[in-house]
Each structure stands twice: as C-alpha cells, then as structure tokens.
C-alpha cells in the first residue's frame, strides 16, 4: 500500500494532483482522507491555507488477472470475434492468459502471429495505463506459442543445413526479438554456421552464414 500527502487549492484539487502523481485515473481505487480542508482568503485578503489530503492507494489488493480478463472480453466483443478466456495464471511478475475460440482462433492469431502479438501489446498497454501494474501479460491460444517455437527451431535447422550444403549465406524473413533470440540459441552450438541479425526495427532479420574454415 502506498500513502501520499498532497496539497492543493481545495481538497478536490489536491486529490486530482495526487492521482496525476500516482498515474491512475480511477478514483475508486484509492481512499481519500482530508487532513485539512484549507481556507481560501476572501478576495486575496485574510489568511489562506492550502487544503491537504492523504491518499491511500492499495496496489496489492488489486486483482490484475481479473482486470485482464475483463478487458480482453470487452475487446473481443467489440472486435466482433467469438472467443473467451480458457485459463489464466497470475504470478508475481506475469499474467499468462490462454484464449479460446471455436470459430476464429486463426483470426486471433493472424499471419505469423501478428494479431496475437498486437492484442498482447495492446492489453499490456491498457492494463499498464489503467492499473499501474507492471506485470507482463502473455497471450496464447491453442498453444500457438509452443507450436511456433517448434516450427521456428525446425525451420532454422533446415535452413542451416541448406547453408552448409551450398556454402552460401541465407537471410530469413523479419522476426521479432523473441523469435530471433530463439534462432540464435538453436544454432549457437552448430559450429558449421554463424548467425547474425541485420537491419533495423521491425525489419531486423537473421542471416545464417557458413562458418569460416580455419
């Protein structure tokens, strides 16, 4: 629990400032105690005193998992896509969510997982903004993450094999940092090839080259 004291022109003003400082918008998440309602001078005469409030902000009672579920369902219904939350595991630093959809799981994953990636990014932003939680939210559906991981490992080995056979470097399609890391790790023990990332930002891709013979 966090407690802060803030001064302002009026108790309301002080509360607003405190909320801005905490970076939260929802007043129902805090308890406000007015220490001093303040006194405004009349037309600049008399003694004016700032109002003072004490704000209790309880982070730990906040159930991030429940909020994640609520936001996801609201988002899915607005996307007009049938789907729900199958499983949700919340730990100290992460919230793992498994989605399900009878008719539209392919749509939720998107080409090369683009939609799932975008949804995950968006949910992380929204949760971060509304609760101030820094937990990382991970979305999955039909164990897509696991399948993609296996597919990437197999693909990188296949391409490494081709590179060794032809002796020519090959460049893979652009991938996100997580996927690139996976490929570097898969091939790091293969002495016959070297891997390197090239390009900038979303266009960054891996180049697999034959190892230089000594």
């Amino acid at each position: 629990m966090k407690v802060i004291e803030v001064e302002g022109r009026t108790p309301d003003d002080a509360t607003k400032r405190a909320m801005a400082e905490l970076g939260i918008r929802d007043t129902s998440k805090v308890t406000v105690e007015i220490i001093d309602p303040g006194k405004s001078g009349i037309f600049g005469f008399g003694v004016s005193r700032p109002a003072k409030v004490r704000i209790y902000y309880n982070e730990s009672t906040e159930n991030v998992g429940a909020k994640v579920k609520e936001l996801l369902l609201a988002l899915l219904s607005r996307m007009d896509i049938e789907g729900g939350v199958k499983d949700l595991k919340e730990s100290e630093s992460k919230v793992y969510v498994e989605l399900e959809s009878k008719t539209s799981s392919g749509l939720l994953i998107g080409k090369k997982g683009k939609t799932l990636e975008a949804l995950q990014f968006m949910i992380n932003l929204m949760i971060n903004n509304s609760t101030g939680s820094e937990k990382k939210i991970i979305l999955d559906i039909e164990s897509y993450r696991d399948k993609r991981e296996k597919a990437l490992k197999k693909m990188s080995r296949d391409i490494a094999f081709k590179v060794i056979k032809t002796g020519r470097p090959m460049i893979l399609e652009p991938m996100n940092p997580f996927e690139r890391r996976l490929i570097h790790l898969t091939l790091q023990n293969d002495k016959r090839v070297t891997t390197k990332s090239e390009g900038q930002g979303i266009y960054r891709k891996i180049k697999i080259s034959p190892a230089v013979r000594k």
Partner: protein
Amino acid sequence: MNYSELVGYMVKSLVDHPEQVEIREIEGEKSTILELKVTKEDIGKVIGKHGRIARAVRTIINASATKSGKRVVLEILD
C-alpha cells in the same frame, strides 16, 4: 461491425484526455476510413515509438474486418 466503438475503446484507455477523442467513420463501397482525432499531447500515446501502437491498433481493426471483406483504414489526424 462498429469500428468507431472498437477504436474508441482502445484509444480512450491509452490517452490522458479520453473525453477529447473524436472518431469519424467514412464508409465507402470497398473500404471504410476511420479518422481519429486526439489532443496534441495525446498524439504520441496513440502512435507510439516507431508507430508501434498505431500498428497494433490497425492490426486489431484488420482482424475484425476480415469477415466483412472490407478494407478498413485508420488515419490519425493532427
């Protein structure tokens, strides 16, 4: 399918001034154009570093537009 509602829902939870978010939907035969207007201070919050947020919003819109077969374009006005 109500795209304004979807975009509004996402954008309003990201910006500091949700009451000043304006969305105009221009429906054409083959495509729908969404014009999004936010306050100056909030523009960065809907675009993001290297347009990451804008790209995520567009990807999500396109996923929901797949069924209709229509193209949906999101324009962020400044």
